[in-house]
Structures are given as C-alpha cells and as structure tokens.
C-alpha cells in the first residue's frame, strides 16, 4: 500500500460556510522600502514574499512607499477616485444592460478597479498594454471615448470592431490597449515580443503584460517569463491575483508555492507583491516599475493581490462555489472606499461630493448608453455590416472570400 497521496488545494470557504481569510497572512503596511530601480531577483526575496502597502488598516498612508507616492503629486488622488468611480458606474450600467438582454455578455472589473486605473495613469504615450478582459479599467484611465467603449460592448454600429469580437474584447491601439484574444496566457509572451521590438527600434516605449492568477498556469506564462529573462526587454509583467479563476480556487494554479511573485523569481526576474486594492500603492509601484523598465533594467513582475468581487462574468453565478459575501470579508477592502476614506481623512474630499460624483458618473454613462443604444441592442437589433465578416481576414481579400461574400449576398 502506497504512502503517496495526492493533494487537491482547497479554498478557505465554500458555499454554506462563513467567509474566512483568517489564515491568510497579510503583512502590515509600510514595512517594505522602495528598492533601487536596478534591483535583481536575488535581492527581492522580501518583495516576492511580502506585500507592498501604503494605506494601513486604519486608512493612513505610511512608510517609504507612501513617501514615494507623494512625489506623484496630489491630483493622482482625485484622478484615481474619478477613474475608479467611472469604471464602477460602467460595471453597474452594463451588468444591468446585459441582464435586460441588451448585450450578450459582460465582465465586471468590480473590486479590482485600482489596478488598471492606477497603472494606466503611470504610462506614457506609445506604451502598450496586453490586457485581459478584466482590465478594462486601463481603457477608462486612458480616457478612451465612452461611445467606443460601450459600442464594443453593444456589438453595434458604434463598435470599433464592427461586432467581430465578444463584448469586453476591446482593441484600441491609440489608447495603448492591445487587441484581446480571449485565449488565456497567449498574450503575455506577445507583450514581451512587443517590448523586444521597442528595444530593437530604440523607441523608448515599454510594454505591459497582464494575466490572471488562474492563467499563470497556462504554458505561455512560461514562454513569457523565460523570454523576458533571457532577452531583458522593457516590459512590466502584471499578475492579477484575485483569488479565483471562475470556480477554481487560486491555490490550484499556485500549487505549493506561497506566491506567484516567487515563481517569477525562479526565472531570475525580480518580482514584487502589492496590495491591489490600495490605489496609492498601485500608483506608486506602477510608477516605479514603469520607470525601471524604461530605464533599461529589464523585465519586472508585479503580483497584484486583490479579490474578484463580482461573478466571473454574466454567465457565472459564484454562489455555486464560494462562500456568500466573501467579497465583503476581503481583508483588504474595497479600493474605491479606501481611497475615498483616505481623501476624506486628508480633508480633500467629503461624503457629499462623493455621492455627487457617483451620481454624475452614472449619469455620464447612462447618457452615453442612450446614444450607443440608438445603434441597436440585442433585443432591438439594427442591421450590422455583414461585409465585416469577410473584411480583414487578409489585407487583400482573396478570390475564395470574394466568392463567399457574394454567396452570402453582399
């Protein structure tokens, strides 16, 4: 009889149980220094194990990273708050639209707004993100026109992609947002390739790869890490660890390693772990990482520690696999509320202005929504370009597609 037993990683709680993060060790804020831009993988053991935080449990900004964040100026606070509020308003309205049958599909960013919003504001023109479907907050902070953003979600005449792609699979080159494929993992290594092209052409631009905790299991995670380690291009590789991959607990993708950042270190790439629900920490670390990459110190990996507050998508009901109200129990709270509370404590903001801002944001989105819905919805569709099906398969349409287009009747 064998002594070998297989293990199957288990989440802290399942439906019917009370949410429980008590065993999760969450280092205090302010413990970690701001390292030199040229830090090596060997030197960043503490950063891969620990957690960079600026806002502590009482909502105070403390420690070296708080100082560093201050150097980014005070307006990042209001900008961040507005970006996140807009993102959340879009989530609210679009979830609703999908529930009403007006769109086919939607994915909420809820709970992770700080990450994309905070990161994007630290990028420069020409930098390119290779996002996942849940990083639409990058587009919000890039000030992507709302009509185009919503147009893609409504797959109608306003859609820059002319209906070709599933909602949330945006593409916006001019806003530093690479076309999302929908296949997990594949684009992480493409980001490394783009960054290599940047270095080869000496254009001073950087690339940012994005991947979810679940998708770090995909083989192209290895392709990306190894290529980045070998060639040292200017790329920031972001791992958004939101604890879940659809119904699958993050431990299944993490295995016996304690963090995803440690896996990156194994490739000889420096890696940091950051409280992704702390806008100040996100902004500070993003600024630092982007500066490092641009300065030519090679790739850097950031594990953003956060929680997927919503269901995986509108096709998913999390009550089937995780404890009720787990999001509310997340020890690192809600990014929007934490920043708001900090700003109020700093006397930079009030409850009234916050309520007003949220109302404005909802308004803003609702107005744009009206316009965009005039282009057609799933329940009241308007004819779409059907030629779009055949156009763009190749630069020039070959004979067989010209014929098929004719057969199709246009």
């Amino acid at each position, binding site marked *: 009889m064998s002594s070998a037993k297989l293990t199957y990683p288990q989440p802290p709680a399942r439906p019917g149980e009370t949410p429980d993060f008590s065993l999760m060790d969450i280092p205090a804020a302010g413990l970690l220094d701001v390292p030199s831009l040229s830090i090596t993988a060997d030197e960043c053991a503490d950063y891969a194990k620990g957690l960079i935080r600026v806002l502590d449990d009482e909502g105070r900004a403390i420690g070296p990273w708080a100082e560093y964040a201050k150097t980014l100026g005070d307006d990042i606070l209001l900008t961040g708050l507005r970006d996140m509020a807009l993102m959340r308003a879009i989530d609210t309205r679009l979830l609703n639209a999908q529930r009403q049958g007006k769109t086919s599909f939607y994915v909420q960013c809820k709970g992770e707004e700080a990450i994309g919003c905070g990161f994007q504001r630290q990028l420069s023109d020409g930098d390119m993100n290779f996002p996942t479907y849940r990083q639409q907050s990058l587009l919000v902070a890039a000030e992507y026109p709302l009509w185009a953003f919503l147009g893609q979600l409504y797959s109608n005449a306003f859609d820059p992609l002319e209906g070709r792609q*599933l909602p949330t699979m945006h593409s916006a080159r001019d806003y530093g947002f690479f076309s999302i494929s929908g296949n997990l993992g594949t684009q992480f290594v493409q980001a490394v390739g783009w960054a290599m092209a940047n270095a080869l052409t000496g254009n001073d631009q950087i690339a940012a790869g994005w991947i979810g905790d679940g998708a770090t299991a995909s*083989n192209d995670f290895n392709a990306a890490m190894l290529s980045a380690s070998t060639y040292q291009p200017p790329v920031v590789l972001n791992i958004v660890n939101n604890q879940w991959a659809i*119904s699958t607990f993050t431990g*299944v993708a993490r295995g016996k390693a304690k963090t995803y950042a440690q896996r990156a270190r194994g490739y000889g790439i420096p890696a940091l772990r950051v409280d992704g629900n702390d806008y100040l920490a996100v902004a500070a670390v993003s600024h630092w990482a982007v500066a490092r990459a641009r300065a030519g110190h090679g790739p850097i990996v950031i594990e953003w520690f956060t929680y997927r507050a919503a269901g995986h998508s509108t096709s998913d009901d999390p009550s089937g696999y995780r404890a009720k109200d787990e999001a509310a129990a997340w020890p690192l709270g809600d990014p929007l509320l934490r920043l708001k509370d900090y700003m109020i404590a700093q006397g930079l903001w009030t409850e009234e202005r916050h309520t007003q801002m949220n109302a404005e944001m909802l308004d803003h989105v609702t107005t744009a929504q009206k316009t965009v819905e005039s282009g057609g919805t799933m329940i009241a569709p308007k004819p779409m370009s059907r030629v779009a099906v055949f156009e763009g398969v190749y630069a020039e349409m070959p004979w067989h*597609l010209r014929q*098929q287009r004719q057969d*199709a009747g246009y």
Partner: protein
Amino acid sequence: MPKMTMIEALRDGMDEALANDDKVIVFGEDVGYFGGVFRCTAGLQEKYGEARVFDTPINESAIVGLGVGMAAQGMRPCVEMQFADYVFPAYDQITQEAARLRHRSNQDFTCPMVIRMPTGGGIYGGQTHSQSPEALFTHVAGLKVVMPSNPRDAKGLLLASIADPDPVIFLEPKRLYNGPFDGHHDRPVTPWKTHELGEVEEGYHTVPLGKASVFREGAAVTILAYGTMVFVAEAAAKETGIDAEIIDLRTLWPLDIETIEASVKKTGRCVVIHEATQTSGFGAELSTLVQERCFYYLEAPIARVAGWDTPYPHAQEWTYFPGPDRVSAALKLTMEA
C-alpha cells in the same frame, strides 16, 4: 426511458462510467467542485470524491499530458477542454503524443483517453467560444473523432469512447445541449424533452463507434451531416420538400463508409454540410471519398455547405452559420443539376 437534455445524458454517461470502472477519472478546468461551466459534471465529485473527479489548473497541455501518462499506466481519463477553442495548447500532446503512443511503442504503451469539448457556435460566443476543429483531428492518424447530435447518442457514444482502447476526440455540439436546434435562431427553442431522441436508455449502454445512423430516409439526395447540422439538414429537407436522406455520421473517423456509399449510390446526389470553416474542412474529405467511390453514380456535382473561411464573428454569427436557407439552396441546386 427517461428524458434528458444532452448535458444530463453526458453526465449520466460519465456517472455510469465512474460507477462501472474505478480506472475512470474525470478532470478539467472547473469540472470538479463546480461541475463544469456547462454543468456536465455537476454532482460527480460529490458522488465519487476528489480522487475521481477534480479541478485542474488552466493548462490544456497539462490536462492532456497528465492524461497520457495516466492512461499509459492503466487509468481511463475522461478529460474536458472547457471549449473546443481552447484545445490548441494541447494540440501537441494530442497529435504528437496520445495519437502515436501505441504505434511508436509497438503497443508497449497505449492511451485510452477521451477528450471532451463543447464545440460549435450559435451562442454568441464569438471567435473563441464557437469553433469546430474536427478536421484538425481527422487528419491525424491514431485518433478517433466522435460527435453526437442528440442525448441518446451522446450517452451511448461517450460510454463507447471511454471503453475504447485508443484516444477519442469527443466533440459536443453545445448548441444542442438543451434542445434540437434547426438553425432558425429567431424561433423559440424546442427542449429535448419534447423530442424522441431526448429519451435516453438507462444504465450502461453504448452506441458503437464507426457506425453512422440514417437520421431520415430519402431517395432524392444524400445529406452528410453531424452534430448541429443534422437538424439544420432536416429543416432544409422539410422546407424544400426534397426527399433527402440525412446521414448522421456520429463517428467522423473511422468513418462508416458503407452506409454513405450505399446511400449515395441509391440517390446519385450528395450534399455535404458542416459548421466549421469550409477550406480543408472535414467536408472536403467526405466529398472526396464520395467522389472516389461513387463517381459513376453521381448525377450532379457534390455540393458543400460550410462556415465561411473567416473567424467566427460575434454579432454576425447568423451570417456565418450555415443555416437552413443555405442548405436548402444547395439542395435545390443539386436537384436541378
């Protein structure tokens, strides 16, 4: 006989397999605790435990690669690709490893494994939730390729596939999970419980691989179809009033060539249809085999109706989908030729 959706029938099939043979194990992304994004394995982990039914990391190559090792060591893995569109990271393990293990080792090692995958479009899934990759497997020596079109066959074919000594690609037409779909997306969905093929044999029961079924008898023209397109073919036959014989292939490879040959030699006409992109699709092989074997019986060119040679679009998916109108047009042309 109990009425089931295709999802229930597949689940029932895996349930039987798990109960019958403790070498059978089921795993894949989200298939364990939650029971799969399409719920095909719902309840199986609770019933058989985590050692028999479990969740995997999001790595299709690992899912199949682990399966190859387990199968070679005597297990019978039945694994799920969450969508057929995501099988490609595992394409190397399937085509270069699983498919050739028996041959290259002179039968020293074998690979009895089933790789299930929801296939095809019609659910507004866009280009990464709609593909039909069957031709990318029928070209590979050592693989068997199966695609049921109804709950009854789904259970029987799945059990036959799990019992098969070689690797089987098991394609599930997801648009048929909940009811027979004839391509008229604008009409209300008929649920399986109202369809006789929604009646599924109880207990352990197999439908043999390599045998097609004559879904509808006819004398005027032979339609070769599989999966979703079987009901589209039926609709086209009804709407055109053409006395078409519809052959549901059920197993794409090895193909039931006798049934096909007999039918085409009887009708003298043939229309081949599938949802996958046309060029180098499985329809090309079907058309070629029919031409090679029935040339002197053919009264008209063999017609093909397939998906366009484009990515599967999201908003325009009904422009892409080869529905009853396109099949009807091909039928008429073939009859008039």
